[in-house]
């Protein structure tokens, strides 16, 4: 396995970030007061006693939307290697290929638009 300077730099910078974030937290843990008792551990809901837990079922209407995102984000990622070579590629054929790819992507938006996802209904049939 080839270990490049870039990989070392990534590790070191992440470690630096960890120390940068951890340092003040540890300092704060050392010098800050530690009050306890009473209702201090209660979830904050503007002073009212919390009704039930927050970890329960709730309708998240972003399901279809998450699918749309996945389709898009993964597909857009394929365009990065294309972009690097694109100016050197010869002829209009490269443009037609890219146009077809993006046309299919655009169809996804049109499909979901027509399906009514962007009116944010409670339930999408």
């Amino acid at each position, binding site marked *: 396995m080839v270990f490049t*300077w*870039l990989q*070392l*730099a*990534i590790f*070191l*910078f*992440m470690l*630096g*970030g*960890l120390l*940068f*974030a*951890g340092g*003040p*937290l540890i300092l*704060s*843990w050392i*010098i*800050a*007061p*530690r*009050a306890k008792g009473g209702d*201090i*551990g*209660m*979830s*904050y*809901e503007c002073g009212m006693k*919390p009704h039930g837990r*927050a*970890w329960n079922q*709730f309708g998240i209407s972003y399901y279809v*939307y*998450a699918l749309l*995102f996945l389709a*898009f*984000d993964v597909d*857009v*990622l394929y*365009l*990065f290697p294309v*972009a*690097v*070579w*694109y*100016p*050197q590629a010869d*002829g209009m054929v*490269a*443009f037609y290929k*890219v*146009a077809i790819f*993006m046309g299919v992507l*655009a169809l996804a*938006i049109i499909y*979901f*638009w027509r399906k009514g996802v*962007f009116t*944010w209904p409670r339930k999408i049939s």
Partner: protein
Amino acid sequence: MSQIPVELVKILIALVAVAAFVGLNGLVLVYLERKVAGHIQRRPGPFEVGPHGLLQPLADAVKLIGKQLFTPKNADGFLFWLAPILSFMPVLLLFLPLPFGPKLTGMNLNLGLLLILAFSGLNVLATCLAGWGSNNKYGILGAARAVSQSVAYEIPLLLSVLAIAFQTGSLNLSEVVAGQGSWPWQWNFMVQPLAFIIFFVSALGETNRAPFDLAEAESELTAGFHTEYSGMGFGMFFLAEYANMIVVCSVAVALFLGGWNGPFFDGAWWFLAKVYVLLLVMIWLRWTFPRVRFDQLLNLNWKWLMPLALLNLLITAFVTKLS
């Protein structure tokens, strides 16, 4: 005796410089934001600590450190504390490929742009964990909003960045900057004005800045995903947000506004000046526009930014092939 490799020394110097830069900028931006906010609303802003309130950010930092770190009773302690650390951890790395000056770059990477885009995604995960881990209803709502918003605004962001990549054939930020001239009409935003606007609007959405700060909309969710965080836990999210603002502004400057190129004297000062102008615009927007509703926010993205970005990319591809 073996010698210390030059590369290692360079990486370490870059790391220390970036950490200092992030910390210092955090202080400056806190002061700037409060001062600009004050003057926009016709009040002086912080004024008591030091001359013209200059020492206020330091006092704030000391206050944040002096506050108790508290884990709520119902929270998942591990995730709860993992989140602020995770939100800050990748931030320093985002500064690595940024070209501050002709020679002043952490590391000249041919995939610099991709590195920034990849690691900035971790911030969404941190926000999600913060909301979920704190077991708070406001927190979970804020996290759900943050995820669907960041996820949506990432795509026009990528598409507008791709327009530049298609045009220049490079993902190396230093090369993109070097390809632009010294005068404003030679910068990329003259040929890609639409991409620049789309990039800037999506960057506001990505960094959860007003008018798109629905993840922490204080009028409805008290503080959104960081409701339960006190003291330094909140401070980390705050610092990460400011650092992310600097990163998106720097990328915008490098891609669209000529980076370190400028009239008369090329250099890092032009880069910093442009970054700070963009940051001021972001702060200005925050105190000018009211917060949008959530479906408006998402529809703006899917119905306007996304089709426009796709169209812009297609036109760019076409014109690149013509010339």
